[in-house]
């Protein structure tokens, strides 16, 4: 019998759902074994019945729930709590669900500051209210499987679903992006200061990836040392490195509870690079992980 799946998105962008579709031919194979019974992006199940007359919000019972996005509104929190009650296994899909993601940069401001700035004096009042900040899924409900990434790699999604079909859990190994990066390292930066990305890296486009010198050693910002590997899939390099740009940490920290801010300082100093030239360090190193109180409003100076 097909595995019943509930899929829901919260403070997200649809990129995680697009990544499910990017499993491509694997999706064709998986479709016979999965039944999506609630998935706002593709399927018509409604919270209040087909004609919108029910008074209670209803999420169907399922074997697995896959949720993307952090929790921004009170309504999202209630939906998530009901999903947890109705579904046996809860999968947090993508970095927003796991760590708040880019939208949790909002946690650098008080809720009212943001709303007032965007709507000036005409604040919408008859809408689902914002919570005080953006929460990760596991701050509201127990999570069984984490599939990180912004977006997650389709290969990881396929692996996790195949594990679920066998009744097993799945997790990404705790390795760094650098561990999966083929670029050439000499353990020493080419100059002492970090440069902003105002010019391209030095590389030969016709040559294999392992002929290019490490992005950090070229003096540019790369968060590979403090970011979990997994974006590479079967390709020859992590995604950003394939594009010849530095990593920005979209798979989140290598392990739960890691402190990228501290670990990155030592990564820079180990190759003789001064972090002084790195602009906006707090937001950069917490760009994808603003939930769990990693980002909060600072007192006004």
């Amino acid at each position, binding site marked *: 019998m097909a595995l019943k799946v509930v899929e829901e998105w919260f*403070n997200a*962008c*649809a*990129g995680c*759902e*697009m990544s499910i*579709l*990017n499993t*491509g*031919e694997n*999706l*064709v194979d998986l*479709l016979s074994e999965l039944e*999506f019974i609630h998935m*706002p992006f593709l*399927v*018509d199940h*409604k*919270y*209040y019945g087909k*004609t*919108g007359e029910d008074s209670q919000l209803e999420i169907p019972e399922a074997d697995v729930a896959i949720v993307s996005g952090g929790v*921004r*509104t009170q309504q*999202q929190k209630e939906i998530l709590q009901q999903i947890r009650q109705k579904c046996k296994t809860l999968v947090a899909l993508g970095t927003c669900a796991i760590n708040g993601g*880019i*939208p949790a*940069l*909002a946690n650098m*401001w008080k809720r009212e500051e*943001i709303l007032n*700035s*965007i709507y*000036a004096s*005409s604040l*919408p*009042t*008859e*809408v*689902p209210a914002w919570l005080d900040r953006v929460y990760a899924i596991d701050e509201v409900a127990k999570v069984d499987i984490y599939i990180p990434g*912004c*977006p997650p790699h389709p290969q990881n999604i396929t692996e996790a679903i195949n594990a679920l079909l066998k009744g097993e859990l799945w997790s990404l190994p705790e390795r760094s992006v650098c561990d999966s990066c083929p670029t050439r390292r000499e353990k020493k930066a080419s100059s002492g200061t970090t440069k*902003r*990305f*105002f*010019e*391209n*890296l030095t*590389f030969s*486009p*016709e040559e294999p990836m392992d002929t290019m010198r490490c992005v950090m050693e070229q003096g540019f910002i790369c968060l590979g040392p403090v970011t979990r590997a997994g974006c590479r899939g079967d390709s020859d390099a992590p995604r*950003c490195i394939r*594009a*010849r*740009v530095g990593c*920005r940490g*979209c798979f989140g920290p290598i392990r739960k509870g890691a402190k990228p801010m501290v670990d990155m300082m030592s990564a820079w100093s180990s190759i003789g690079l001064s972090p002084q030239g790195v602009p*906006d360090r707090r*937001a*950069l190193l917490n760009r994808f992980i603003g939930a769990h109180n990693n980002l909060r409003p600072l007192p006004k100076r």
Partner: protein
Amino acid sequence: MAKTLTIEPITRITGHAKIVVDLDDNGNVADAKIVTTSMRGFEQFCIGRPAEEIPRIANRICGISSWDNHLASNKAIDKICGVTLPPAGEKLRRLMQHLTWIANKTLHFYFLIAPDYMIGPEAESRNVFTIFKSNPELGTKVIKMRQLAAMLVEHFSGKVIHPMAAVPGGFSKPMIESEREEILKGAEELLEFAKFSMELAKTEMLSKYMDFIEQIGVINTGFLGSITDDGSWEIYDGKLRLMKADGNCEDFSCEQYTDYIDQHIEPWTYSKFPYVKNWGEFGLQSDNSSIYRAGALARINVCEKMATPLAQAELEEFRDKFSRPCQYTMLYPYASLIEMLANTEQALALLNDTEITDENVRVPVEAKAGHGVGCVESIQGTLIHDYETDKDGFVTKTNIILGATHNTAAMNLSLKQTAQTLIKEGKYDQGSINRLEMVIRAYNPSFQD
């Protein structure tokens, strides 16, 4: 007795929204609204970030139109830095945009709206999985074709969702000959798929649902879209054109958008309501003259011609049948497929241009105080990223209007017209309720500011 229907979530769209229909004591529609139920606040949290990092943050506005947001963001910063891109840098950006549009138009037509037409508006189960079960050959084809377009972008640029390969001043890497050949081969396949989709839309939509198209969601508005200097359909650059409902046009540069467009706010939705301030005062009545629409139908209306032969032939056929401007909301998806033909033709032209493999793809930029407006078309409509920076190149002010947001007022009007047409004396069922959503789906909305 008066009552309220709450259709939530609106499904097979992007973002978070619900339909609220108020019925009076006689069961007739007193009011119908689309409520956007969430908002994230990108305009705020881009402030304080280094300008060169914004294209890697603002791309997260939408996981579907992430390349469009990425490009509009880069263009705003190009302008702040005062740079002119090397030709290959601009051509690579354009190529990525065309290819992602093919993937995303396939998504919209086949995954989001086709179930309503091919399975039927009243069917119990209307979704891409049902299409897949009833017609596995077609289902497999569309899954593979969307995947092909997406992976051509991913293999070359690293990421199709939330990209980083466009950079202020150009592109992060040149295209080598073997990459060009691979993408060219794929693009040729996609051209055949675009032709196939156009014909399918004619048999499955136009020939079967013309009454529906003529009656449902029809409103009278102006239109906004991008065009080249000679008036051709354009999605990456050019000037903006506003066309009134009577067909009169006014063209302006994207920097001038605030001279024309203002935004209204209502207390019951997170979405703002852009309107043309020089056309009249904003109001949510069907005869309000300040309301305009953006997206596929708008672009097809405002352009004088398509720049490529197959798309031009389709445009001529479209105008013969539906005149210009065409106000039929339900023809948005059809207009979108004419554009998909143009995307494949223009992608092929770029790939056959030897300059695309030139190694010079970026000019260096520097931190600068300034003001830049970057516009591109996203599938949903004209995307406007407006930033100001300080002398260290940090963002101090933003205004971002998403493509779909231009249609907030128009979608509400289309919904109300449809609800009042279909729901009378308390009679409605899941088929009529689904038709309310079909009108909204036609716009390809994205409720996520």
